[in-house]
């Protein structure tokens, strides 16, 4: 059993894989709860362009907000099964609201013969 986890090096910017083993995004940001008088605890992994754009220079961040309107997806830390080189989730992407755009584009792509 691991005693510690370096969030910046071992979680942030790592691939997230759902219960079916399918990639469903990267850890674009991490949210904490900070109750008064208690140490902060990780509450959510945040996924989506608006999450990573907040970490980039102001101009790029503004451009992303202008072009992309999809809201970020918050994955509760309790949904994390374990962390290796990837962040493994307990549930499927669909249940957690991840990979929506892929499913939307998938409906369109599936109309092409051979898809």
């Amino acid at each position: 059993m691991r005693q510690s986890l370096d969030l910046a090096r071992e979680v942030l910017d790592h691939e997230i894989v759902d219960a079916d083993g399918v990639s469903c995004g990267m850890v674009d940001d991490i949210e904490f709860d900070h109750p008064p008088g208690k140490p902060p605890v990780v509450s959510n992994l945040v996924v989506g362009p608006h999450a990573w754009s907040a970490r980039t220079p102001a101009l790029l961040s503004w451009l992303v907000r202008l072009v992309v309107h999809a809201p970020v997806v918050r994955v509760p830390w309790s949904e994390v099964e374990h962390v290796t080189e990837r962040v493994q989730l307990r549930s499927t992407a669909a249940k957690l609201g991840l990979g929506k755009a892929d499913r939307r584009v998938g409906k369109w792509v599936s109309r092409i013969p051979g898809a």
Partner: protein
Amino acid sequence: MGRFAEVFLGILTAVGGFVEIGELTFTLTAGSIFGYTLLWVTALGTAGIILYCEMAGRIAAVKHRAVFSLIRERTGFTAGLITLVAATGVSVLTCAAEIGGVALVWQLLSAWSYRWLVIAALVFFVLVVWWLEFEWIERVFGLGGLLMCVYVATALAEGPSWSDLLAGLVPRTPDVASGRELANYWYYAVAILSSIMLPYETYFYASGGIEDQWKPKDITLNRVIVIVGFALGGLLSVSLVVIGAEFFQAHSIQPQLPGSAAISAVLAFGSVGLFAALLGMFFAFAGAAIETALSGAYNIAQFVGWPWGKYREPRNAARFTLTWLVIFVACTAIIVTGIDPVQVVEYSIVFSVVVLPFTYLPVLVVAADKRIMGEYANGIASNVLGWIYLVIITLAAIVAIPLFVFTHGGQA
């Protein structure tokens, strides 16, 4: 056949990197200007790409991790994003040039309008990548690319000066009259190193290993594939230098188009040489177009965490599929304007050198990490060589753009 056929991944990757349209003409030109004096750069680059592709392939086999997720994880988001933008730019420019190259080869065979052939090439690529499984893309374009060996036969027929060839493998500064000529020499040295160690080769190769479902037991196979594939690429590159030095320099021809590259094979082997050269170029350029378009889509998907891979049904890797389709269409839109494909790819070669350190550092760091790779981590030799190469490519990345500007892209 099964496992043996995996070698075509290495051959396709190497042919698509070493003798695509830009490098074909660029290496011939370098040979025609500098003779054998730059051969050491070819040898240095070939050993470097073998070293790093072996590491990237090993990571793919052991951990099923592709290069761009490592880049984001190890260099951080902003540096990773800059690398992604630059790598995508290089992929798109190179892919555009290869589509133009395929159209030029078809034009030599049919005399039809170039612009219509560019559109036909787009349709061809979309159908091939949509319908062919990854392993058949490897086999068809890897095997067809072997026709480029006609240039090895041509080089031998030219009767190379073996003593000069061996002397060229030793690094040295040439006897030149002016500082400008010296800058030109180093510009070509940096560009050849960059063109051999092109980052998209590593992205494609490692992603290909995951497409082919490699497992830890395949790491010996991975070694064989990189050595066979890239040694063949190196041999083709050396042959082009020989042809440049012995044929184009002697006849004062500037080999600026794929058609002129075929002349040497025609004079050596007649119509058989011509068809082998044209078919070989078709498979090499087409292989490079597919390699660059797919590696562009692999990179973006791996950076943002989309499901990716030709091994998935297109509807199950929808954004990845859409991305390679968009890349092909965008590249066609660029090249149909009539822009010179050779010029396009020469710019992309110089700019890709800047991406090299950001590509290879994460690969080296992860391949060396025993906590991640366990018993499959780098040995001492790979680590020492890896760091030496990283210093070399970092120096090349620093001087590439100043040399490009100072020599007007090798025209000084």
